C-alpha cells in the first residue's frame, strides 16, 4: 500500500477543514499538510448555508450580548468558556475573511452590513445575500490555493483513523478514481467531516452529510457528545427539504397557520409584532427549537395546511416586495419558484420543519482537541460545545472559522511539541487491517441485505422516533431497531465489485457511518430523561438541571449499544435561567 508521509492530515475540506489548513500553513510554512476529502472542496456542504455568520461588530452590540444569546439559546448546555472564546474571536475571523475577499453585503457607507437572526438580541449576522456559506467556502478554497504546503487529496474517502501507542498517527483513505487504499502517516490528524443529517429522510443536508468524520473518531474510541440534540430548521420546502433561510424571517417574513394566524404568539413567543417590522428575539425571530416545537403542537391541533407532502405552515414574505426579495433573498425566490412552483413575491410559501444540524459530535475541548492525543476536530462534526441544546442560526458559520483555525493552531503546537516518531511497522499493520476490512466487502457473497433497503429502514426509524418530540417507548424501539440494523449491515453484499469510482461501495461505507451515529443519537436521547432545547421528551417535559446540566458522552461498542456517561457543563458566568422569548421581556 502506498504510504503518504505528512505532518498534519485534515479529513474534510469544507469551511472548517479549509480554515484549519490555512491556519497551519500560515503558522508554519514548513509543515506538510494533507487535505483529504471525499469531494472536491467547493462541493462541501458549507456551500449550502444561506443566512450568515454571527460576530459582534456594531456599536450597539457587545460580546456579552452575543454570549448571553448563545448560552440561553443553547438552554445552558453550552460550555461557557468555549462560548466566550467564540464570541471574542468571531469578529476577527469575519474581518479576516473580508480581507481574503469574501463579498459580504455592505451598507451605503461601505461598512459590512448585518441582519437580524433568530434568538439574537442584536443585529450581528454578517451575510453575503442569501449565499453566505457558499461565499465563505469559495473564499476559503480560493485563498487556500495561495499555500503550496497544502496538498489536496480530492475524492479520497477516509475509512479509518490509525491509532497506535495511544495516539492518532494518520488514517487510511480510498482514492475514488483508482479504488486504491492509501495510508496517510501523520503526526496529527484533524477531523472536519461535517454533520450527519442524512440519517433522516427529510433533511436540508446534501447527500454527502453522512457522519463519516464522527464515525471515524467514535470507532477510534473518542466519545460522541450530546448526540441527542438534533436541530430541526422550521422552514424547509415540503417536497425536497430545501432550506429557506431564517433570514426570510429576519427580513420580515411571517409564519401563519392555515387560518392565517401568526401562531407563534400562542407558544410563548408573543405578543404579535407588526407585520414587516420584525423585533429581535421574539415571534418569528424566536429560536429554531421553539418555532419547530410550536409547529408540532399546531399540527396536533389540526391547524396546519395539508399538502401532498405532509402538513405545512405558510411563510409569507409578500409584504417585503419584489425589490427586497431579489436583493436580499434571491436564492430563496429561485428555490421556492423552481422546486415548488410558488413565487414568494406573490404567494405565501408552504414550509415544514426539516432536519438541519447536529449540535452534538466528536468530544472536543476549547483547543479543538479530542481526548485522543494527536486527534483534533472542528465544525459540525465536533461538539466543543458552543451550541448546547440548540444552536442559534448564524453561529455555525462562525464556529467553523473560529474552531477550524483553533484546530489548525492546536495541531501545529502539538506537532512542534515533538511527538515521538511512530512505529512504522505497527502503523502499516493497522493500515493493512483497514484495507482487509474493505476488501472483505468485495469478497462477500450470498449477502441478503441491500444498502438502499437498510438505509430506508434507518431513516424511517429516526423520523418516527427521534424527531421533534420523543418518548421512552419510541426511543427504546429505535435503539432496538438500530442494533438490529447494525447486525444486518454485516450481511450487505456489494452489487458493484469494480474499483473505479465505486459509489456502491461509497454508499455502503456511508451507511455504516450513519448507523453508528444514529445509534449514538437514540441511545443518548433515551438516557436523557428531561426536555432541553431541541431534545423534547413527552414523558419528561421539564428541564432537569439537577441531573442533566451535563453533556452526554456515547462510547462506541462494536456489537453492543453505546455506553453513555456524563460530564458537567462548564459554567463561567451565566447560571441556568428561563428562556424568555416573549416580546415583553424588556
Amino acid at each position, binding site marked *: 500500500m502506498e504510504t503518504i508521509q505528512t505532518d498534519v492530515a485534515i479529513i474534510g475540506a469544507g469551511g472548517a477543514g479549509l480554515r484549519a489548513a490555512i491556519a497551519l500553513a500560515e503558522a508554519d510554512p514548513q509543515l506538510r499538510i494533507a487535505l483529504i476529502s471525499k469531494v472536491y472542496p*467547493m462541493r462541501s456542504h458549507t*456551500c449550502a448555508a444561506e443566512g450568515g455568520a454571527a460576530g459582534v461588530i456594531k456599536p450597539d452590540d457587545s460580546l456579552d450580548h452575543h454570549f448571553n444569546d448563545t448560552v440561553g439559546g443553547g438552554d445552558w448546555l453550552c460550555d461557557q468558556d468555549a462560548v466566550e472564546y467564540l464570541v471574542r474571536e468571531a469578529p476577527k475571523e469575519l474581518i479576516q475573511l473580508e*480581507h481574503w475577499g469574501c463579498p459580504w453585503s455592505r451598507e451605503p457607507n461601505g461598512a459590512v452590513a448585518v441582519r437580524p437572526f433568530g434568538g439574537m438580541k442584536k443585529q450581528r449576522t454578517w451575510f453575503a445575500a442569501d449565499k453566505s456559506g*457558499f461565499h465563505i467556502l469559495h473564499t476559503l478554497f480560493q485563498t487556500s*490555493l495561495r499555500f503550496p504546503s497544502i496538498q489536496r487529496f480530492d475524492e479520497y474517502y477516509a475509512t479509518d483513523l490509525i491509532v497506535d501507542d495511544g495516539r492518532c498517527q494518520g488514517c487510511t483513505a480510498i482514492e475514488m478514481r483508482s479504488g486504491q487504499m492509501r495510508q496517510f502517516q501523520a503526526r496529527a490528524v484533524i477531523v472536519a467531516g461535517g454533520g450527519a443529517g442524512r440519517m433522516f429522510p427529510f433533511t436540508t443536508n446534501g447527500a454527502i452529510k453522512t457522519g463519516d468524520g464522527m464515525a471515524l473518531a467514535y470507532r477510534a474510541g473518542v466519545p460522541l457528545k450530546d448526540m441527542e440534540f438534533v436541530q430541526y430548521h422550521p422552514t424547509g420546502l415540503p417536497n425536497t427539504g*430545501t432550506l429557506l433561510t431564517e433570514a426570510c424571517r429576519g427580513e420580515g417574513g411571517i409564519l401563519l397557520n392555515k387560518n392565517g394566524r401568526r401562531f407563534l404568539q400562542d407558544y410563548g413567543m408573543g405578543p404579535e409584532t407588526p407585520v414587516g417590522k420584525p423585533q429581535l428575539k421574539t415571534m418569528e425571530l424566536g429560536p429554531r427549537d421553539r418555532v419547530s416545537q410550536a409547529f408540532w403542537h399546531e399540527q396536533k391541533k389540526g391547524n396546519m395546511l395539508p399538502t401532498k407532502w405532509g402538513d405545512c405552515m405558510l411563510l409569507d414574505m409578500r409584504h417585503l416586495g419584489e425589490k427586497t426579495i431579489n436583493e436580499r433573498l434571491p436564492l430563496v425566490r429561485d428555490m421556492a419558484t423552481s422546486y415548488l412552483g410558488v413565487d414568494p413575491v406573490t404567494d405565501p410559501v408552504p414550509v415544514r420543519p426539516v432536519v438541519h444540524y447536529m449540535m452534538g459530535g466528536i468530544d472536543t475541548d476549547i483547543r479543538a482537541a479530542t481526548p485522543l492525543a494527536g486527534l483534533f476536530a472542528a465544525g459540525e462534526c465536533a461538539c466543543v460545545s458552543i451550541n448546547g441544546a440548540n444552536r442559534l442560526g448564524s453561529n455555525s458559520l462562525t464556529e467553523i472559522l473560529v474552531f477550524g483555525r483553533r484546530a489548525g493552531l492546536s495541531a501545529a503546537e502539538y506537532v512542534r511539541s515533538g511527538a515521538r516518531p511512530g512505529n512504522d511497522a505497527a502503523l502499516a499493520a493497522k493500515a493493512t487491517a483497514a484495507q482487509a476490512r474493505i476488501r472483505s466487502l468485495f469478497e462477500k457473497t450470498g449477502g441478503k441485505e441491500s444498502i438502499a433497503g437498510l438505509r430506508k429502514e434507518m431513516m424511517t426509524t429516526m423520523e418516527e422516533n427521534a424527531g421533534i418530540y420523543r418518548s421512552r417507548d419510541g426511543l427504546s424501539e429505535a435503539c432496538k431497531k438500530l442494533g438490529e440494523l447494525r447486525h444486518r449491515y454485516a450481511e450487505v453484499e456489494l452489487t*458493484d465489485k*469494480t474499483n473505479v469510482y465505486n459509489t456502491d461501495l461509497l454508499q455502503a461505507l456511508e451507511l455504516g457511518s450513519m448507523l453508528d451515529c444514529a445509534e449514538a443519537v437514540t441511545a443518548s436521547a433515551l438516557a436523557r430523561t428531561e426536555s432541553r432545547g431541541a431534545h423534547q421528551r413527552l414523558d419528561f417535559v421539564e428541564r432537569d438541571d439537577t441531573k442533566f446540566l451535563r453533556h452526554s458522552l456515547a462510547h462506541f461498542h462494536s456489537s453492543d449499544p453505546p455506553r453513555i456517561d456524563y460530564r458537567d457543563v462548564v459554567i463561567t458566568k451565566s447560571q441556568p435561567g428561563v428562556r424568555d422569548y416573549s416580546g415583553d421581556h424588556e
Partner: protein
Amino acid sequence: MFELEVLRYNPENDSEPHFQRYSVSCEEEWVVLDALNRVKETIDPTLSYRWSCHMAVCGSCGMMINGEPKLACKSFLRDYGGVIRVEPLVHFPIERDLVTVIDDFMAKLARVKPYLIPKQEKPVSEGEYRQTPAELKKFKQYTLCINCMLCYAACPEYGLIPKFIGPAAIALAHRYNQDSRDGGRDARQEEIAATEGVWECSFTGACSEVCPEHVDPAGALQQVKIKSTVDWYKEHLMPWVKK
C-alpha cells in the same frame, strides 16, 4: 414512467462507452437527478454520478441532458418529452459513467491566482476594508460561479483547443481584478492575456447561455480582452502613460 438513456462506461470492463435504458416511475415535480437516484436505489446500484446539495449550489451534478450541459438537480422532468438522454459533460475525459476527470479545470482555476492580492496590506485589528454597494456590484456577479463546468462543456473553443484556459477561470480572475480591494491584476494578467488565455475565445456566448448562476463569463472575457488591448497600446505605443 420515465425513460432514461444513460451513458455507461466502466474502464475496467468496457472497451468503449455504451447506452443503457432505464424505465423508472417518478413524481411529476422531480428533476433528472431524482430519477437517477431512483434508478440507483431500485434498479441499478452500479450507476455512478456525482451529486450532493440538490439545490444548484454545490456544482457537482453537471451533465449533458439531451445534448445540453445542465445541472441534473435543476433539470425538471416536466420539461422533457420521450426518452431523456443523459451523458457526462463533453470536453472532459470520462472517469466512470457520468463522472468526468476534472484535473484540467482544477489546475486552470489555480493558475489564475483566484484570491485577493491586496492593494495595501492591512492588519485584521484595523477592521474591514470599506467597499460601497456600487463597488461590490462591479464584481458580485462573477463571484457566483459554482464551478459546475457547464461553460467548459458548452465552449466550442475549449473543445478544439484544450489549452484554452476557459470561461469560468477567466471570469474568476476578472472577479478579483474588479474588486476594489484588489491590486493583483498584473500578476494574473500573465496567465489570462497569454495566447491560451482570453484570445482563444471567439465569443460565441455559449458559456453565458448555459450558466445556471447567470455569471456571464462571456461578458467577463470581453472586458478582459478590451482591458488587455488597452494595456498593449499603453505599453507599446504610449510607454509614457502608466497602466
